[in-house]
């Protein structure tokens, strides 16, 4: 759907990008980010509060639920900037969870859950994966059973993004012969969270264990199984990650070019060596291609038919692009690029782990093949 909203950004979107970038550049220091990435619960709460004050966290949430009611394209602009800075804030998780709530919940549940998510007071995340290779829903063991007019949840969710810092989990469980979503507070009885060291220290992961956790009736979103809501939320997540991938890759390219201009060896700037220059040229192609598909995916999210193609396309192209560019960025920086002191590894780790989140590259390529009738 080439004619749907244009690739060219509006004045307002450019302003938004600039504001977020300035905020991150002044408040989120790379040294602090590195420091936080040594912990299991990296979370820059000051930046989160700042983003909340700007109204960015609930940008896409309809105004009736306390958000700003913007489209996904605006949200995309924010994710690109976050990817550029790799500041540890759980915005992707929060966005995915709120998308799931919007897709699955009743009016009443939305009104009770979304305002605090949109304001940033509550950090929410989607908990659907149970093993390293499965798709959500595949041989899932977490089960919800009715008891005393409410529910009891038992099972374990792994690789939950931002679990160590989350207040609210949207948990997938077997129920009524299908897969339903449940809103589970971290303070709920029977809920425990175990942080898991993540390859990308700037995006924490954790295991959420539900040991006969008792829940009220209203915890069951929509009161019926909602497999499509999970798909929708993960798709939104993949598209959000694609913007992050673009932002990170663009930053890696810029760092590499700056370094290639200023680092001298053999009496020449290393960027005058073709081995380096050509690497940069290839990185540029990858970055420009990634931008095109990421932005296309963002504008296609409201168009179910095109999204079938655009979402897995974004996963496929942006993941590979970021991996290439972040890897080459280390190479171009030589020894210094391999040090903890340098930013390159933050991006490299992001690139690898992002390509694995919310479903494998292979799985998305299979979906793209299905969409193309291949």
């Amino acid at each position: 759907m080439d004619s749907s909203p244009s690739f060219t950004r509006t004045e307002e979107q450019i302003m938004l990008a600039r504001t977020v970038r300035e905020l991150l550049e002044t408040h989120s220091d790379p040294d602090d980010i590195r420091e936080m990435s040594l912990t299991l619960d990296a979370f820059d709460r000051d930046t989160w509060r700042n983003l909340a004050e700007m109204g960015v966290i609930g940008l896409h949430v309809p105004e009736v639920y306390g958000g700003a009611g913007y489209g996904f394209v605006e949200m995309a602009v924010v994710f690109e900037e976050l990817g550029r800075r790799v500041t540890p804030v759980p915005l992707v998780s929060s966005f995915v969870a709120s998308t799931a709530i919007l897709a699955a919940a009743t009016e009443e549940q939305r009104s009770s859950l979304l305002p605090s998510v949109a304001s940033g007071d509550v950090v929410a995340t989607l908990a659907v994966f149970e093993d390293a290779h499965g798709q959500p829903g595949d041989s899932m063991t977490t089960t919800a059973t009715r008891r005393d007019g409410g529910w009891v949840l038992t099972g374990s969710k792994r690789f939950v993004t931002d679990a160590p810092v989350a207040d609210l989990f949207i948990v997938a469980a077997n129920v009524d012969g299908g897969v339903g979503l449940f809103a589970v507070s971290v303070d709920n009885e029977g809920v425990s969270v175990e942080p898991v060291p993540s390859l990308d220290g700037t995006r924490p992961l954790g295991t959420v264990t539900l040991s006969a956790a008792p829940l009220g009736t209203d915890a069951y979103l929509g009161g019926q199984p909602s497999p499509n809501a999970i798909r929708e939320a993960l798709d939104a997540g993949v598209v959000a990650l694609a913007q992050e991938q673009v932002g990170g890759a663009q930053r890696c390219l810029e760092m590499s070019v700056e370094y290639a201009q200023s680092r001298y060896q053999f009496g020449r700037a290393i960027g005058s060596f073709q081995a380096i220059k050509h690497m940069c040229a290839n990185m540029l192609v990858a970055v420009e291609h990634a931008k095109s598909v990421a932005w296309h995916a963002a504008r296609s999210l409201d168009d179910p038919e095109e999204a079938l193609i655009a979402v897995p396309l974004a996963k496929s192209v942006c993941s590979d692009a970021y991996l290439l560019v972040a890897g080459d960025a280390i190479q171009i920086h030589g020894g210094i690029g391999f040090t903890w002191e340098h930013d390159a590894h933050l991006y490299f780790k992001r690139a690898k782990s992002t390509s694995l989140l919310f479903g494998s590259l292979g799985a998305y390529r299979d979906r793209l093949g299905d969409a193309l009738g291949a």
Partner: protein
Amino acid sequence: MTEHREQTVVADAIDRLIDSYPPATTEAKVFWGAQFDAGLAWVDFPEGHGGLGVSPKHREMVQRHLVEADAPTWNRTANVLGIGMGAGVLAAHGTDEQRMRWLRPMFTMDDIWCQLFSEPGAGSDVAGLSTRAERDGDEWIVNGQKVWTTLAHLAKWGLLVTRTDPDQPKHKGMTYFVVDMEAEGVEILPLYQITGEAEFNEVFFSDTRIPDDQRIDDVGAGWRVAMTTLMNERVAIGGNPVPRNHGAIGVAMDTWASSGTGDQATRRELVRLWGEVEAMRLTTLRASENMKAGVPGPEGSTGKLAWADLNKEVTSFTVSMLGLEGATIPEGYALEATTYDTREIERVMSPQRHFLRSRANSIEGGTSEIMRNILGERVLGLPGEPRVDKDLPWKEVPRG
């Protein structure tokens, strides 16, 4: 004219053209002549020279409307060097008389054009060329050899760069001409390529005379004109928005469908490639949108390089999907000159032949190495390489 006014002018011209010359019943050449006279050949050119003097961004609209009206657009590649490059050169550097003389028959395909840049000793480094032109009154006398001249065997006119002053540094002593390919002293020999066909030729000049009124721009300005040519060429290759599944990737998808192997690894690789090609396609669309909006960015420069790499990869993958069939070549090999009937070419070109042809993609129109230099230096601002030949008089530059 305001943007809106321009749009109306162009739209009206299109309507009138299609009304007066219904594509279904008009012979192609007649239609093209009428299109030229209506100012819809290159809308941004001056009136009377195939244009309406409006912004080049309306070209896309013309193309779109003509395609929708089923106007004859086929087979234009046979004159791509004229329509895609020569025309731009004449617009930027030609005189009114030269434009009057050459543009219309070029557009109607009565005159085919070719590009005489590369020489045995000057390919990527085209500024090193040694074909000599010496002044003789109102004429120039040309001696030397060009090589890889696509379409020379069908061409009436050639875009020729020559050396006129060997004592100047190489970029300075060149002069640009339009040469009559049927003139005395022009010898054209087919040069067969790895597919067996000869799209290109060797061209020899022996005391060939060119009237001075066929000189383009000033004496010594040849490099400037050559740069205009190459810029137009690189836009013509890989710069045009195409529909989804166009070209090699469409063939790859069809090949997969008919192979029936169902192998998952193959399918994933195919889909990965489809994604890369789609990313390139969307980038071209984004580039043309940004161009129209007046905010061109780096996305407008990556097409040629990306296209060359991907076309090679996709066509090779398609041949692999054929299994042992891929070890055959249905048309066989025969040494023959290309006719350039693109409808015919598209009908008969096998994936195997496409695979072989694609190897030229990273050589023709500037090699991929040169494209990476350009992206690195002009788009990303990386420093150039130390140049040993830049300020030396051309005749002292080492060659080989």
